[in-house]
């Protein structure tokens, strides 16, 4: 892939626990209005939430595909129960491309093309080459990866496509324990899906009052939104062709429009950054990982 290949905009899997109705409305609007090429669907964080989407999944997939969008099914990042394994086996037997987020997915998708999700550690050429040999056709690189490493892994490799998250809170960890439940003095087994109260996650502050992390059930995310706009051109030059927007509870159609304009050269990154600020409110922008710094940092590119 080179800098002249068409850049694809993707919508990562919804990480938060929204109601079926909110999910349906969100994805149908994406289908009708968003300049997005690929949509990842499926529960990545907690299998207890899965039933919420089941009722609208078929309709959403049909509408997205009818709108010309590629649909990829994302799978859980931390798989421990036999039921969770069976859920991956079920999607692995279907027609759609699947994103593996745990090595279990790589094993169960053997012999089929698949996407390596950002929760599988691909930090170097050795890991990349092994997974390409297993049938990986696209690799979503870990959020921690700095630009110079991305260039080494993605640069000049035409055997697969490479994807990087360029908007939204970055996932930092997954756990067996549910912190959302803990924040409500509950345990994971008796959580009553309390994570559904916070459509954009629950802010955790430091004891001296700085917003620092976002709690999303068993997942922990950055507080700030990762924003890689000024870096899009250099990422393209490094061999990245797919650019992931991670859904947040804000106008994602407008966010997609801004990124599309920058990718198409119709809007300068600075102007897009200012316009993005109007959509995201007070939440800080961060880009530290890409620049090889602490993840919460911001570097003016």
């Amino acid at each position, binding site marked *: 892939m080179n800098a002249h290949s068409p850049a694809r905009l993707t919508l990562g899997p919804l990480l938060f626990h929204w109601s079926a109705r909110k999910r349906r409305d969100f994805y149908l609007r994406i289908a009708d209005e968003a300049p997005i090429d690929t949509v990842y669907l499926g529960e990545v964080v907690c299998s207890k939430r899965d039933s919420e989407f089941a009722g609208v999944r078929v309709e959403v997939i049909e509408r997205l595909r009818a709108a010309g969008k590629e649909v990829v099914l994302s799978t859980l*990042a*931390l*798989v*421990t*129960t*036999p039921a*969770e*394994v069976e859920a991956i086996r079920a999607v692995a037997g279907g027609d759609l491309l699947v994103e593996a987020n*745990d*090595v*279990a997915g790589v*094993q169960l998708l053997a012999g089929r093309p698949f996407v390596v999700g950002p*929760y599988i*550690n*691909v*930090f*170097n*050429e*050795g*890991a990349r*080459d*092994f997974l390409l040999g297993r049938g990986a056709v696209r690799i979503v690189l870990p*959020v*921690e*990866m700095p630009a110079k*490493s*991305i260039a*080494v*892994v993605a640069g000049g490799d035409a055997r697969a496509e490479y994807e990087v998250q360029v908007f939204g809170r970055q996932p*930092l*960890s*997954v*756990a*067996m*324990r*549910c*912190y959302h439940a*803990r*924040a409500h003095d509950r*345990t994971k087994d008796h959580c009553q899906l309390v994570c559904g109260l916070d459509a954009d996650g*629950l*802010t*955790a*502050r*430091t*004891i*001296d*009052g*700085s917003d*620092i992390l976002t*709690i999303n059930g068993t997942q*922990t995310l*950055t507080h700030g939104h990762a924003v890689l706009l000024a870096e899009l051109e250099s990422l393209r030059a490094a061999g990245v062709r797919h650019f992931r927007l991670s859904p947040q509870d804000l106008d994602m159609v407008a966010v997609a429009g801004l990124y599309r304009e920058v990718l198409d050269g119709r809007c300068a990154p600075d102007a897009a950054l200012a316009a993005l600020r109007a959509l995201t409110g007070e939440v800080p922008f961060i880009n*530290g*990982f890409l620049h090889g*710094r*602490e*993840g*919460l*940092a911001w570097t003016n590119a």
Partner: protein
Amino acid sequence: MSPRYLELVCPAGTPAALHAAVDAGADTVYCGFRDCTNARNYPGLNFDADELREGIAYAHGRGCHVLVAVNTFPPAGNQAPWHRAIDTAADAGADAVILADLGVLDYATRRHPGLRRHLSVQASAANAPSIAFYRDHFGVKRVVLPRVLSVEEVAELVAATGIETEVFAFGSVGPMSEGRCFLSSYLTGLSPTSEGACAPASHVSYVEQDGRMLSRLGGTTLNCFGRGEPAAYPTPCKGRYVTHGRASYLFEEPIGLNAIKILPELKAAGVTALKIEGRQRSRAYVTQVVGDFRKALDALARGTTPPASGLKGETEGGRETFGAYHRGWR
């Protein structure tokens, strides 16, 4: 001698700790090289090639095995130190290497097919297909299970995969899926996954403010303590955070994992080996913890009741838990 009840795998952060662990009754010790190729890359710890050779001679002379952890993830364009670490461990006569990265596993499998491979907890293999993947592709003989599983789940995995398992018996309670946690690099810019140091001391500070002691990692305050109260080390998942206006240990309390009272449960689950954590801890810690586990295992092997153990003083915060092994932890 009684048949082995469970293999006791003990930390050797330094050559001196290796001697202490062997002398205290370890069946196996594990160690790493003095660089970013292992997940305890802290100043003053670890081994060079000569020290490893000497340590292996000492351990083997006393019937004890030596495992070498090469369990971080090489950054792109710089895999050579990891490959060299495996070559060096093989040359020195290590009994196995403990690996996590797919590329490093692939290298070891192709270059040193005769060198036994264990899967590090850093690979976070917590289900049967993942373990089968590493077993089938890299001939992995043993998996160190993530400390997020209950005893029942451990038993199911042992039954489903037919592979040796090693579980954490003493050390910290790691609430996050290990090897995939970017909290420390989010705050410091240094990556535990590729540089081998979570909450590196170079980025830790303690600041006195309004009669309280604040502990910080990078520029972020992770906890505060009153005068005279011992200030815990600021690891991101052990800090205090405020949600809904209330400060709490959101991820994990200052508490240590101690499974010494549930060894029969782990044995019944089909576990092969117990891992004692603490390559960054003192020789005295190694001697006491290894000694107590040795006595407990020997008693169980003889079919007698283990003696009372006094390890509480060695656990984090002086409090202990069975962690994820018992289900209420979640």
